[in-house]
């Protein structure tokens, strides 16, 4: 055995050993996709318009307040869309005062005049883009926190193809509906002062203000206090102060608790800043009602008995699970905008396990069939092909485990196609060697010529296949990506095994004797 050959063999053995080390034991090292492991795949859209509307409403509210303090009582500020609002009725003589009030507003909004005393404001395009972007990022972080609290192993929370989409993958999750609820609930907690109420319906609430509700008051639906009144539940409405005293942003924590009637409830406490605000607020409003508003619905409206600094509690008709989930979502923070589901794919663990069995069976069956044929047709050289294809599969598994690539059911199909590619390269080489042998060269020369002549062809075919695999990767979602990944890695390692390993095997077989015949 030549020194050169020994080195080549060592390289091959080294690569095989490294690959086996990388994927062994396979049930721990090879990552399975959702379709094999079971779990849920969700694509959500962040309704970024919500965040824009919030910003516009807030700005309008602020401007209204500013104009009032500046004495511009005749002016009306009204939002017209998610990104625009109008101001009407500015007296001409006070135009200068009005303009001086606009300094902060005009940082984010473009002003245009609609005739005397009337202006419209439109959010600047770059502000809109920034806002949408940061809303999606905030939503992403919030979902990440919630998913982590759910205790799912190896979850994926990431931006999806379109700008406002988020992909969530939860392997092994069986209670899909609960997971979806937890991810989706806005969990916006607000504590607001009750001005009047409760009323039996919205109209009578408005009636209390003579039909037109002032801009700083908001009518919100609530839950009737069933247990206390002992009467059937019905809708109730409260007239609340529009600006909340404290919001969920000032929360430090939330935990499931029991209330005084031993019903599940959620307790929360504030951070220092929130405690200061809440303390001052409750201290100033002893004897009045405080509404605990969750996602635009009044949960409870207890009377403020004394100054409260740190703690509060949300009571209602929760089950223990609901209380625990609500505490979880409150802890992870409110979503900056509501979410809608665009896509949901759930695979039960039993179907996943069946798919693994079917895939392994198909791959083994395919490999056996192909190997039988190769040995029958190419005799001893067929074993050479067999070895190089097996090494190819070992390297493929090793690289996938090393790169942390995910194995999916279409990925198993990729394995089978890799077997096909491996066979193709070997057939290409063997047929060429046969042709070279027919031109009455020596065996060694024929083998060498066969490999040399076919190398460019193998390179060309592999590059072409890699191009289509690359676009496949671009196109695909989870399972298809798994397929593209497997195919790509398989193609790359096939160049190594078909050209280098297979040739070394031939050289090894031909090194021992003065070969005059080749079993091919």
């Amino acid at each position: 055995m030549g020194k050169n050959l020994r080195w080549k063999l060592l390289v091959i053995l080294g690569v095989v050993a490294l690959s086996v080390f990388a994927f062994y034991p396979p049930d721990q090292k090879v990552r399975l996709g959702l379709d094999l492991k079971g779990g849920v795949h969700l694509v959500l859209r962040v309704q970024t318009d919500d965040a824009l509307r919030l910003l516009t409403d807030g700005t309008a509210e602020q401007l209204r307040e500013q104009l009032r303090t500046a004495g511009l009582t005749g002016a009306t500020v009204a939002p017209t869309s998610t990104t625009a609002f109008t101001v009407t009725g500015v007296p001409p003589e006070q135009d200068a005062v009005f303009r001086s009030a606009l300094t902060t507003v005009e940082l984010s909004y473009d002003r245009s005049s609609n005739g005397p005393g009337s202006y419209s404001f439109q959010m600047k395009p770059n502000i809109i883009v920034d806002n949408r972007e940061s809303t999606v990022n905030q939503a992403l972080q919030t979902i990440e926190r919630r998913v982590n609290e759910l205790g799912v192993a190896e979850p994926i929370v990431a931006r999806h193809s379109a700008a406002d989409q988020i992909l969530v993958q939860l392997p092994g999750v069986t209670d899909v509906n609960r997971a979806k609820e937890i991810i989706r609930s806005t969990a916006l907690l607000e504590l607001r002062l009750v001005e009047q109420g409760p009323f039996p319906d919205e109209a009578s609430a408005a009636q209390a203000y003579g039909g037109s509700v002032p801009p700083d008051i908001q009518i919100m639906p609530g839950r009737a206090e069933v247990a206390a009144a002992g009467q059937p539940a019905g809708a109730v409405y409260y007239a609340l102060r529009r600006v909340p005293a404290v919001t969920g942003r000032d929360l430090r924590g939330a935990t499931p608790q029991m209330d005084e009637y031993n019903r599940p409830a959620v307790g929360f406490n504030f951070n220092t800043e929130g405690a200061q605000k809440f303390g001052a607020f409750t201290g100033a409003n002893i004897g009045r009602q405080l509404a605990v508003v969750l996602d635009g619905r009044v949960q409870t409206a207890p009377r403020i008995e004394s100054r409260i600094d740190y703690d509060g509690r949300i009571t209602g008709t929760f089950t223990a699970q609901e209380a625990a989930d609500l505490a979880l979502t409150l802890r992870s923070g409110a979503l900056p905008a509501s979410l809608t589901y665009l896509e949901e794919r759930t695979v039960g663990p039993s179907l996943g396990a069946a798919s693994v069995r079917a895939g392994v069976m198909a791959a083994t069956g395919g490999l056996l069939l192909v190997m039988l044929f190769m040995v029958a047709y190419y005799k001893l050289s067929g074993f050479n092909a067999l070895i190089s294809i097996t090494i190819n599969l070992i390297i493929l598994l090793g690289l996938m485990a090393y790169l942390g690539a995910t194995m999916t059911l279409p990925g198993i199909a990729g394995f089978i196609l890799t077997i096909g590619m491996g066979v193709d390269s070997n057939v290409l080489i063997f047929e060429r060697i046969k042709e070279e042998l027919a031109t009455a060269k020596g065996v060694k020369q024929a083998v060498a010529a066969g490999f040399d002549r076919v190398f460019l062809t193998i390179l060309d075919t592999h590059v072409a296949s890699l191009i289509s695999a690359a676009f496949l990767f671009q196109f695909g979602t989870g399972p298809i990506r798994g397929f593209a990944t497997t195919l790509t890695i398989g193609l790359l390692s096939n160049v190594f095994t078909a050209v280098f390993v297979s040739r070394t095997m031939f050289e090894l077989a031909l090194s021992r004797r003065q070969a005059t015949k080749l079993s091919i």
Partner: protein
Amino acid sequence: MRIFENANYNFIQWRWHAIAFSALIIVAGLVSIATRGLPLGIDFSGGTIVVLKFQQPVREDALRTALDAVPGEKVVQQYGESAANEWLVRLPEVTTEAGASLEQGARAVVDAVTKANVGQFEVISQEIVGPVIGADLQRKGIYATLASIVGITIYIGIRFRFAFAIGAIAATLHDVLVTLAVLTFFGYDLSLNIVAAILTITGYSVNDTIVIFDRVRENLRSKRRDSLEAVVNTSVNQTLSRTLITAGTTFMAVLALYVFGGEVLEGFAFTMLVGIISGTYSTVFIAAAIAIILSGKQAPGRPQAARKAS
């Protein structure tokens, strides 16, 4: 042992027959697609699929009756082997994007089957695709297929001559269209997996074609006096055994996938099987023929093709 030892078939002579035959299948497929529409799976059209696994065998009509309560046009079919007692229910596209209504269909199916008391069951898989995602995937699927074809054309254009690139791409497009036609004849819905298989076919078909073109390039250098037609024909014959052995072994491997791979991969495997047959045929009959037709006026055997070969 060698099959096709010293094969010498005149494939090129049959080029017009081959093109006519392929055109027939493709036109039939296109007519069927034009009249009935391309049957889209829920990945692209949007919709809901719920797969139920029953503990005991259930009668199909009992299940259908139970599902009468669910509005809309439903597809109910056996999923996998009949012994598995698995049934697939497909509902049409959900019209609204609102979160609650997206899953409404799936819930309605589960409720209806539970209520009708058909038998104990569990939901083993559930897929809900909203119209936004469906449209998005449609766009991406078309884009990926076209981009992959263009990318490969450019590569072959660089490595070989332009007429060859067109030949290879004609063969690839041929395979995509024939595969689509056969899929519609056999009533398969276009799904993500099937599009993945079609993209794989483009790679496979080009792969096959390149092997022949490579040989043409080589032969053009050694047999300068022969006409391009003769050189191409010789090259097709020289690589014929390789073409058929590769096609045969790949076909065997994919056949194993079709037989053992289970319901999820059945469409994928079927598409691959059709594509392998079409790809092999187009390699022999279509790709080279078109390359010759397009090279028509060029002086045969010009070393132009060999320019980049070394």
